[in-house]
């Protein structure tokens, strides 16, 4: 839900949390990114860093240059000029990520957790149950049957928060409680209404459904597609998951090890928000 006005919260004496709404939703996230872009363009001297999230963003600032109240007022004014309409188009790359669903490595990770917490329902069974899916094959079809919107990056270097763009492909899942201490690098997880790809072996809380051999973060910038950035994704990109079999999976692993793997990135497309929202509405009406 989009709030009527921005809500400001102080994050200590040098950060402001600006909330636009509550909920994991494409429309709110789009407005977040547009407002962040406008604030960036205003080149306010006190601002040191702007970090967009799902329904909010954070401003790191120097309180010796501008006070909390003045900065909130300035951001509020920019929002007023911008309005809350959702329209326009933007360049948006489409990146296809190969996935081996229900692979051995993430299965072993789930089994290891269940040794300590035997009551934990296995991840894919839990998701199927909560989302009315008959079996794992149906879950795989739903998960790979949509493009995703890169709504935010964070939590870990290169970790992406992906929102499904096709309304019928929404999947929800609770997070692990307590969180896992280990997740395999490349694991695909679902938490809340989001999908993520673990860029490295990290702790984590999302339910795991598969694994990609294609890296999404490369600190050493070894692979060609990381030449310009350590992180594969940018906010506003779109992602698609392509199911692969074990053989193709191993083949990609070998290419990554050799340093020759090229990600499937299409970068000539423009994403029209208006056309998308019309389409999503029609899809929902038909469902």
């Amino acid at each position, binding site marked *: *839900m989009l709030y009527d006005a921005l809500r400001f*919260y*102080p*994050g*200590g*004496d*040098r*950060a402001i*949390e600006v*909330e636009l709404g*509550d*909920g*994991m*939703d494409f429309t709110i996230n789009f407005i977040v990114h547009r407002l962040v872009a406008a604030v960036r363009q205003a080149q306010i001297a006190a601002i*040191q*860093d*702007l*970090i*967009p*999230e*799902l*329904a*909010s*963003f*954070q401003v*790191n600032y120097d*309180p010796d240059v501008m006070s*909390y109240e003045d900065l909130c007022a300035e951001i509020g004014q920019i929002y007023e000029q911008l309005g809350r309409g959702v329209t326009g188009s933007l360049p948006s790359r489409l990146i296809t990520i190969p996935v081996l669903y229900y692979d051995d490595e993430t299965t072993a990770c789930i089994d290891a957790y269940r040794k300590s917490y035997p009551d934990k329902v296995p991840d894919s069974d839990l998701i199927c149950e909560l989302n009315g899916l008959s079996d794992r094959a149906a879950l795989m079809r739903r998960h790979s049957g949509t493009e995703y919107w890169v709504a*935010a*990056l*964070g*939590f*870990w*270097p*290169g*970790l992406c*928060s992906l929102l499904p763009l096709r309304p019928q492909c929404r999947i*929800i899942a*609770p*997070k692990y*409680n*307590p*969180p896992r201490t280990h997740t395999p690098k490349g694991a695909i997880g679902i*938490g*809340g*209404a*989001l999908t993520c790809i673990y*860029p*490295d072996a*990290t702790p984590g*809380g999302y339910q795991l459904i598969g694994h990609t051999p294609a890296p999404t*973060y490369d*600190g*050493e910038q070894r692979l060609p597609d990381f030449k310009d*950035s*350590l*992180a594969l994704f940018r*906010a506003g990109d779109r992602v698609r998951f392509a199911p692969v079999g074990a053989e193709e999976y191993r083949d990609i692993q070998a290419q990554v090890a050799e340093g020759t793997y090229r990600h499937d990135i299409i970068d000539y497309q423009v994403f029209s928000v208006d056309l998308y929202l019309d389409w999503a509405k029609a899809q929902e009406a038909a469902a």
Partner: protein
Amino acid sequence: MSVKVIKPGLLTTVQDLGRPGYFHLGIPMGGAMDRLAMRSANLLVGNDEGAAGLEAVFMGPELEFTQDALVAVTGADMPIFVDEVEQPGWTAIAVKAGQRLGFGFLRSGARAYIAISGGIDTPPALGSRSTYAIGALGGVEGRAIAVEDELPIGRASGKGRAGASVPQALRRGPGSPAELRMLPGLYWHRITEAAQKGFFEDEWAVAPEADRMGYRFRNGRPLEFVEREQPFGAGSDPSNIVDGCYPYGSVQVPGGTEPIVLHRDAVSGGGYFMIGTVISADMDLIGQLQPHTPVKFVKVDMDAALAARAERAALMQRIREAVG
């Protein structure tokens, strides 16, 4: 010139003042946890305050010098030796080629900062030499220092002088119980009034899970949540939120039980609610807390936070004047 690592210590990393500006890629600012100590050590040996030095946790390394240099050790209190001779802390020490810098057991604090004239000259990553092991960035190949590493050292400015020292009255370390001032905010309204009061009344203790990402605290009472309906996608636990950004110093409380204060290598965002933020003036102090140290959180408002910030800046200025 270079410095050879004879013993690495427990967890010793190259740090400077960090790499702010990459949070939007999920890369934290990093840098020394106790910035006042890091800046002071650099000033003592004639470096820029932001030069790279070493941050040693609980236990110091042993280093061998291939050339004469000035070194200074600040922060945690542990005996400092050049060869077998004990040396003062917070003081510029002349070390000769072939000599070794070593340390005894920790007496107080948690992190010692070692500056060497000329600064450590490992290749910068995203504008900083700070080691961020999780992202394999900065430092020595993105990791803690190890036996037989040769740490490259830059050219000394010649401005430092042996024997220069930060006066006792200007050095800072944690008291007991340590007091951390917190500005309530963010999702403070999500816990009950009784829980808000109890949080500041309780005496907490630093948990063993305390590192560059964050410091966890236990022994206080669990927080009680205000009833509400969770928004779509936030998850069913009342401590979950629609993923948001985590400010530096913010206090998140997964499950409402054990608060975690996020520090310089903390993740940039996620789905746990936060009850407020430790003020910037007290963040250095956290880097000097040992596990089991008793801690009280003290409620402050924005004016008090800004006053403390100004006081801290004035203290740093007095150190500059005393050393320079």
